[in-house]
């Protein structure tokens, strides 16, 4: 294929997995980056070299290796801060994944009586929550942006509410959902099933008007679009390393410094403290307040290499390339008989994730045959978004998701595979 945006052939050479053959000589057609992305040599080598020659614990060690590890770890924070446009590097908190970042914010809210009893948690009125108070999410959220809020509602007696989803896979922005009792709104920047990019500015305006905080689950947007957290006008942003060419075991929470300062600590332990006595402790300033114990050192360093890689290619180019692929895929999939796209079927405000059903054939069978016969890796199931599937009255979908290393040829392979699936089950 020829991409107008990227030199894909060159990019593919950076990813060793594409030089691999699957069993029985099938080539690998990886259309599952929405689940987790592949890793370029630049990331793998950075990690290998650090583990081999420079590794030590960070922060606490004062020897050469300790200084090298600390410098590499903190410099990764700098680069990630720059990549997402964080006003301050200290607003970047390393977590183990996006889920931990979302839980961290959810656990920052405590019941009113904690405030009264002078507990570390819940001393700031913005982070107290009780019966009658509301948490707002949406029906298109990933389980990682649903369950933490359900658990919070259970702990505090607050009410969980949500925006619905329209038939064409858009957020149903009913302004009545957010009220003056709403204390936090948390929605996906981009849906991991529909591909829909949500109107952040509008939701943020509603939240602001109601005096609520707003969090964005940017797990599916930061890897694929230029994202500037400061310009988004939100309070918190979560994303995850493994979906953006980085390793597993590393996620990022960005938050406005003033809020992070006001929040109680979440996990307690080494490195998040200022001073400890047996009966009480004082806490380190952010970001360290939220990084208890030995952090994912090599993983943060790997993610630093990943954003360097993405930054060099340019996120505008990545976005444009995925846009081309998505347009091509939507056109091609429309030609497959009885295929129904779940989500927007135009390119407007959507990313490179296309989910669909095939009449009368279970997605598990679709996925397995695509893999087994064609080496085409897609994801099948509810993609950790079961309520969204319930909304559409289907148990599961097949999802193809694209990234900078994909080609239109791979989309052709997918379509060929789908025709074959239909033959097998005819």
């Amino acid at each position, binding site marked *: 294929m020829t991409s107008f945006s990227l030199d894909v052939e060159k990019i593919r050479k950076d990813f060793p997995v594409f030089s691999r053959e699957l*069993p029985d000589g099938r080539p690998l057609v990886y259309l599952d980056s929405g689940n987790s992305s592949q890793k370029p040599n630049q990331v793998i080598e950075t990690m290998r070299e650090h583990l081999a020659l420079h590794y030590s614990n960070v922060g606490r060690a004062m020897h050469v290796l300790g200084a090298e590890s600390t410098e590499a770890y903190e410099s990764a924070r700098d680069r990630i801060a720059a990549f997402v446009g964080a006003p301050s590097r200290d607003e970047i908190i390393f977590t183990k994944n996006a889920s931990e970042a979302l839980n961290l914010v959810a656990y920052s809210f405590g019941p009113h009586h904690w405030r009264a009893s002078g507990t570390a948690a819940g001393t700031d009125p913005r982070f107290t929550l009780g019966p009658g108070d509301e948490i707002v999410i949406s029906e298109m959220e990933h389980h990682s942006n649903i369950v933490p809020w359900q658990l919070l509602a259970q702990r505090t007696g607050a009410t969980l509410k949500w925006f619905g989803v329209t038939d064409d896979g858009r957020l149903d922005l009913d302004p009545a959902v957010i009220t003056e009792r709403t204390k936090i709104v948390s929605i996906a920047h981009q849906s991991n099933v529909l591909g829909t990019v949500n109107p952040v500015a509008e939701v943020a305006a509603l939240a602001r008007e109601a005096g609520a905080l707003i969090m964005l689950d940017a797990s599916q947007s930061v890897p694929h679009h230029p994202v500037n957290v400061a310009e988004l006008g939100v309070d918190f942003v979560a994303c995850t390393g493994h979906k953006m060419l980085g390793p597993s075991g590393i996620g990022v929470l960005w938050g406005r410094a003033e809020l992070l300062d006001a929040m109680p600590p979440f996990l307690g332990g080494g490195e998040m403290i200022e001073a400890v006595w047996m009966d009480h402790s004082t806490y380190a300033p952010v970001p360290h307040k939220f990084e208890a114990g030995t952090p994912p050192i090599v993983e943060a360093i790997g993610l630093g290499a990943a954003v360097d890689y993405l930054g060099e290619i340019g996120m505008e180019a990545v976005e444009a390339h995925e846009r081309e692929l998505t347009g091509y895929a939507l056109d091609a999939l429309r030609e497959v008989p009885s295929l129904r796209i779940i989500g927007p079927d135009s390119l407007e405000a959507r990313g490179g994730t296309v989910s669909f059903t095939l009449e009368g054939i279970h*997605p*598990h*069978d679709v996925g397995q045959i695509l893999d*087994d016969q064609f080496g085409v890796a897609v994801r099948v199931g509810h993609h950790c978004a079961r309520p969204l599937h319930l909304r559409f009255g289907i148990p*599961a979908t097949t999802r193809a998701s694209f990234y900078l290393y994909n080609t239109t040829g791979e989309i052709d392979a997918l379509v060929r595979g789908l025709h074959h699936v239909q033959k*097998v089950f005819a």
Partner: protein
Amino acid sequence: MIGESMYQELILEHYKHPQGRGLREPYDAEVHHVNPTCGDEITLRVKVDDAGQILDVSYEGQGCSISQAAASVLHELATGSTVAQTLSVVDEFTRLMQGRGQVAADEEVLGDAVAFAGVAKFPARVKCALLSWMAYKDAVVRSAAQ
């Protein structure tokens, strides 16, 4: 890695031409099982005589080809066999399915069900294959309790 294609001819045959499908009378016990992760469902009935002979296994359900074919194979294996015999087949099938591909299938015991050996490599599909078999075990236990 997929050692062999999961979609054995036999599985597809059973999927396209399910044996004994439909809910029938009379029956001693009826159960309804759901696999919440993929939404597969099955309603299953058993009729057992006093000597422990399985007179009928009837079922209705929805789901992927693996879960549907597994129910069909189960119907064939169980009908006409005894409770004791089938429970040992269920155990062997469960052992195979949960063996993550490390366990060798005992064809003697399993008969046609051996076709599902390839499924064991896929944790997500194991539940599909086991859905009807677990429902059957449940139903037999309930029928005995009556």
